[in-house]
């Protein structure tokens, strides 16, 4: 079970996500798809040059976090893991769900743990993914841990 796992990362709690992913894999042969979604949504009246600058910055950040993910998952000492790193642009929840469908993944591992205030003010990607994901989801509770 769970031979193909999707791990979305936004850079935060990356250590916890990797710990839980490793525990869940437990030495089996698994393909991990790590994804960083460049959120390109901006409010009305945002200057277009600023929007482009934001996308560029987020893309560079995404590349950095995906490399960090690769380093932390330690492929050298875990030959049972094969890793694909994906950088995509769009609304995080929609991209995660469509990628899960497209790649036919069996599980999504993602962090959750926003406070109630944050959830109301900022929204929750994990909550939206939970409602629309085509597969099982493993939620890593990250609140107050980092």
């Amino acid at each position: 079970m769970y031979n193909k796992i999707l791990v979305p990362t936004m850079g935060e709690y990356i250590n916890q996500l990797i710990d839980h992913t490793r525990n869940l894999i437990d030495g089996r042969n698994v393909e991990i798809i790590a994804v960083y979604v460049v959120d390109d949504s901006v409010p009305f009246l945002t200057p277009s040059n600023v929007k482009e600058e934001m996308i560029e910055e987020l893309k560079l950040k995404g590349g950095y976090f995906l490399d960090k993910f690769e380093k932390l998952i330690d492929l050298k000492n875990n030959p049972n893991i094969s890793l694909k790193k994906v950088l995509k642009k769009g609304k995080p929840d929609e991209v995660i769900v469509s990628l899960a469908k497209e790649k036919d993944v069996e599980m999504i591992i993602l962090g959750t743990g926003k406070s109630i205030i944050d959830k109301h003010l900022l929204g929750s990607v994990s909550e939206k993914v939970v409602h629309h994901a085509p597969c099982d989801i493993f939620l890593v509770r990250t609140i107050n841990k980092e």
Partner: protein
Amino acid sequence: MLDVILNTIILIISLIIVIKAADVFIENISLIGAALGVSQILLGVTAAAIGTSLPEFGSALLAIINHSSHMGVGIVIGSNIWNIAGIFGITAIITGFVKADKKSLNRDGLVAIITGVLLIVVMILSAKFTNPSLLSNGEIGIVSSNMPIIFGSLIMAFFYLYYFKILIKDQKESLNSFKKESAKRIDDRQEIILDSSFNGNNNINKLEEKKEKLKSKNVILVLVSILALAIACDFLIDSATHLAHIMGIPETIMALFTLSIGTSIPELVVTLSSAMKGLYDLSIGTVFGSITFNILIPIGLLSIFNPIHIETLSLYFDTPVMILTIVVVIILFKLNNRELNRISGLFLIGLYIVYAYVRIFFLGGM
């Protein structure tokens, strides 16, 4: 009543046109600059510095040209107070966390304070060398049309050029280190699968010099956007003045609050959305960059060419409040490990409400 509704609609529509026209102008002038071989770094820093401040500049310019320059000064000072207390406050309350990097906070924060102090010194000097005069609305103010303010304005313009030079130098250093490395890594490493919408391997090109063909479409759009900006700014100031007269609100109050908050919408959306995405440098840079530009260019530069009226209250109350809010926000950052949290945000909004209340109901003549 119909007059109020009509002028409010004109004000909102012209405000949206001002913001969109400024956006089109910056986008196309950058493309023309790139086609003419202007450095990408210079274009990037210029677009970032004036991109969000063009609506304030345009409306302050039109206000000063239309002989209601105390409105122009009001827009600039009001925008700055709103940028610091209001926008930082709202951003901190919504995101719960705004982090400033040490270098930007020290550099931009210090420049913002120096700019504010420079403005007040120039204003006081000009007040000493000029006689109080009667403004168009009957209030006593100071007319600055003499050498001290021209000299002070030149110092302000040169100070902005110096700050601009520092920004370009820092941007070059940043590109030479992390950004370039990171862009190269994304371009080189085939195992990172990029979305097709990213247009493949173009990260390095975007950071390096590239010359594109000059297109007539960009030139036309620049001309059209300047025209739209000028007309919409004129309508904006005109509708705000009419609304002030109909509702019995002093023009300065209209400028300090309605126009300044309206023309600062780009700063609000950029600061808030970049903080929500964790791009704190952009968030902090937008606010500090904007307040520095707002003081040094609209007031500094325009007063060289056209005498400006400075209301006594702007000199002795609004400008000191502006400097105080900059100092307060820097202290809040410094006290909390260069972070603003929700409590700091609530404090800043509270500060703005107290300022608005005192200015409108105690000092504003309402």
